[in-house]
């Protein structure tokens, strides 16, 4: 029979004690047993139960009362177990009712809903959710789409038997939705306090933002592009103690004034000026050093051509020492020496950087001075823009994150510290 009951010494199977029904696991839990009575199997089970009880009643012997015991024969036992199994596995599930802000109501299995801390609290403390009329009111930020996604997540993860690999794989597929939906999902998960899902979606959003230019990010997230033209083209005040850069800043400032004057005249001319502005911007980016990457020969040549154009336009505005400085400027990356400085013949930038300029001491202040603040803002923005002009950098991003070792080789010889050179 497989019931695991041994025969006793008389050879008869001892009577099975019909256990009284188990008490509800939670005293406050509303008894919400949705019995789909139309189920034929269940009807058969119910019938079987009725038959079983009838049989056992008939075979009750009038022995001294031994409490609430009903005697069942083994075949009756079998039917009893079957009944129990059917009932528990199918129909006796509890369902929780959830209502979104827009009024739509959804029904979900209890164990799935309990995975969510906020819903769990509502059920336990307030007893809501047991019926359609007393559905749990979800916060405003949870819309029906997000809710169904969240419930899918809960339904998968609340099953205890899943391996980590399975969960990870599910998570990866789960966040492959469009960005708008992902943002809504993050918001909804946060209001339901489902921290693992918030972490998962935040990571996914971070991965989306990683490595993209601001234009792309604005495009994806529909951010307003509301930096003024002026803000975008602000001159780089004192970003470097290099006099060559300051020279160019002066040139740039003069150019900007010119632009403003011409703007007052005609629209058409303004268009042309803007073209010039851009070329100057590119030059600055190039000169200010784009990480020594150069971007390949093609872009280098393009920039050199534009520089020559600039040359020819600005002779009257040039400083007393135009030729030397601008020639030298061609190859100056004022960042730290990397292996890529193939185009720099002169290393005088090192000397320049070592000399302390008076305004450097001003940097020691906390930058509370508003003018200093503005300057710092400009530096940061310039850095940001410079990052954008460095396309090859994007390709190196993945590699550079992986390079982290800074251990010295263990063969007993003094070596130069190698981790430093990885950048």
């Amino acid at each position: 029979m497989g019931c695991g009951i041994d025969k006793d010494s008389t050879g008869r199977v001892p009577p099975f004690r019909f256990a009284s029904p188990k008490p509800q696991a939670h005293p406050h839990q509303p008894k919400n047993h949705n019995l789909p009575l139309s189920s034929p199997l269940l009807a058969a089970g119910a019938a079987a139960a009725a038959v079983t009880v009838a049989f056992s009643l008939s075979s009750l012997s009038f022995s001294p009362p031994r409490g609430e015991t009903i005697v069942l024969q083994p075949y009756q036992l079998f039917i009893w177990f079957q009944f129990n199994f059917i009932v528990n596995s199918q129909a006796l599930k509890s369902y929780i009712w959830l209502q979104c802000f827009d009024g739509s109501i959804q029904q979900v299995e209890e164990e799935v809903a309990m995975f969510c801390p906020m819903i769990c609290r509502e059920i336990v403390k307030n007893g809501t959710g047991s019926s359609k009329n007393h559905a749990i009111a979800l916060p405003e930020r949870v819309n029906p789409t997000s809710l169904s996604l969240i419930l899918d997540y809960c339904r998968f993860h609340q099953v205890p038997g899943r391996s980590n690999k399975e969960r990870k794989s599910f998570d990866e597929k789960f966040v492959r939705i469009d960005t708008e939906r992902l943002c809504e999902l993050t918001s909804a998960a946060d209001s339901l306090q489902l921290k693992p899902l918030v972490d998962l979606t935040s990571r996914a959003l971070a991965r989306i933002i990683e490595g993209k230019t601001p234009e792309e990010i604005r495009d994806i997230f529909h951010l307003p592009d509301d930096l003024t033209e002026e803000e975008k083209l602000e001159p780089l005040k004192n970003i470097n103690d290099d006099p060559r850069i300051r020279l160019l800043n002066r040139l740039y400032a003069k150019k900007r004034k010119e632009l403003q004057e011409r703007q007052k005249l005609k629209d058409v001319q303004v268009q042309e000026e803007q073209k010039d502005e851009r070329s100057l911007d590119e030059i600055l980016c190039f000169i200010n050093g784009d990480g020594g990457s150069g971007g390949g020969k093609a872009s280098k040549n393009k920039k050199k051509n534009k520089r020559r154009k600039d040359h020819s336009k600005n002779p009257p505005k040039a400083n007393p020492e135009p030729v030397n400085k601008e020639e030298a400027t061609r190859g100056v990356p004022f960042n730290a020496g990397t292996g890529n400085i193939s185009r720099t013949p002169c290393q005088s930038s090192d000397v320049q950087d070592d000399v302390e300029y008076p305004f450097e001491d001003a940097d020691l202040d906390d930058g509370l001075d508003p003018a200093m603040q503005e300057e710092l803002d400009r530096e940061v923005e310039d850095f940001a823009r410079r990052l954008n002009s460095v396309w090859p950098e994007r390709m190196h991003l993945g590699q550079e994150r992986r390079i982290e070792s800074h251990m010295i080789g263990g063969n007993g010889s003094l070596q130069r510290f190698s981790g430093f050179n990885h950048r």
Partner: protein
Amino acid sequence: MPSGEAKRRRSPAVEPDYLAALPPEIVDNIISRLGIRDVVRTSILSHAWRRRWQSVRGLDLDFRSSDPAAAISSVLKRSAAPVRTVTLRVPRRWFHRAVRWLRLLPRKRVQSLHLYFEMISIIEGKHNLDPSIFSCLELSSLSLAGCIFPPPPPPPPSFVGFLKLTKLSLSEIELPPHGERQLEAMIAASPLLLELSLDNVYSIDDHSERWFVRGANLRSLRIWTIDQDFGCRIGELPRLEDALIFLDSEVTTQVLCKTLEGIAHVERLEFNALMHHQFSDNPPERFSFTFQNLRSLHLHACLDQISSTSLVFSILRCAPNLEKLEIEVDRDDDEVDAGSVEGFANAQTSGDIFPRLRYVWLHSIDFSSNEICFIQFVLSKARSLELFYVRVSSCRLSYQEACIEMAKYKRASPLARLRFIRG
């Protein structure tokens, strides 16, 4: 479009901003997961985002040596919220700037700090580290490389220790006079310290003071010295599990034994067993302690030298629970002591050696007679051996010959598989 004054361009105004719908903490969380370059790029996304990154908590400021110094300064100054990580790779010409950068750090409540100073040659002096790092009391991980350890700031305020420090890594550090005492105190005052790594930490004095490494919670210890015994001795390390000890080959036998005794309770050990035989007596045949917990042993040895071989055998005799043995043969001179292994192998009289040994790796073997003897010895004694792996650097025998040779050796374990690889 542009009128008398600059006008803010707006993208199609109807489109909502997805990220604006999220609560600000979530967006901050997303930003904090990005690398520093992406974080700074967000400042030019739109007007609202200009300063947003500065108040995000938990940023990872990982600067490269190719970043312009002005950008590093401005980012460091502008990030107002507590940051998680700061990594600076400082080339020589920015050493003076680095002083200013370091002074900005205590305010940021940095948790993880990595400072790598460029080292060009031994002759040029190292950079004097600014004592302001002692004010970074939130540090849980500190890595310093290539500088002179600062003396503690004069009291008040006196520096007790980094109370939250779990990981300390010092590499190529020069200690000032009495710096050993200070380092000892600092390590002892960090109760949570789990990992300690001292790579070529030395004192400018010729005669270093003796000091002890102590740590109630220390799990992993790495000491690597060359050319000098810098006075470090093993103190109380009750929880040590992992040790990598590369002592200078000129330490006395007594120091060697004391060191091994101090780490005898580890589970994994990597050790330099290359000794200069002129300067030290041979180690005792058996140590007075046993490596009771040692499961995995990685030795750098030279089986052709008696001094090294004797140390190898001494250790092996005292490691009853060893499961994995890895020996990397390192020939620093071509002297060969014939019969070095044979002597020890034959002297192995009583007792079980390698009762639990399962995996053996031998690297850079070139099948000298001593090495063959060692292989035979291990194969004949290791009863539980499962895998024996030999990597050959240069070999007088051909591959087939060597395979056949090895297959002939008597094996104590029927399960043992031999693998033989070139290169």
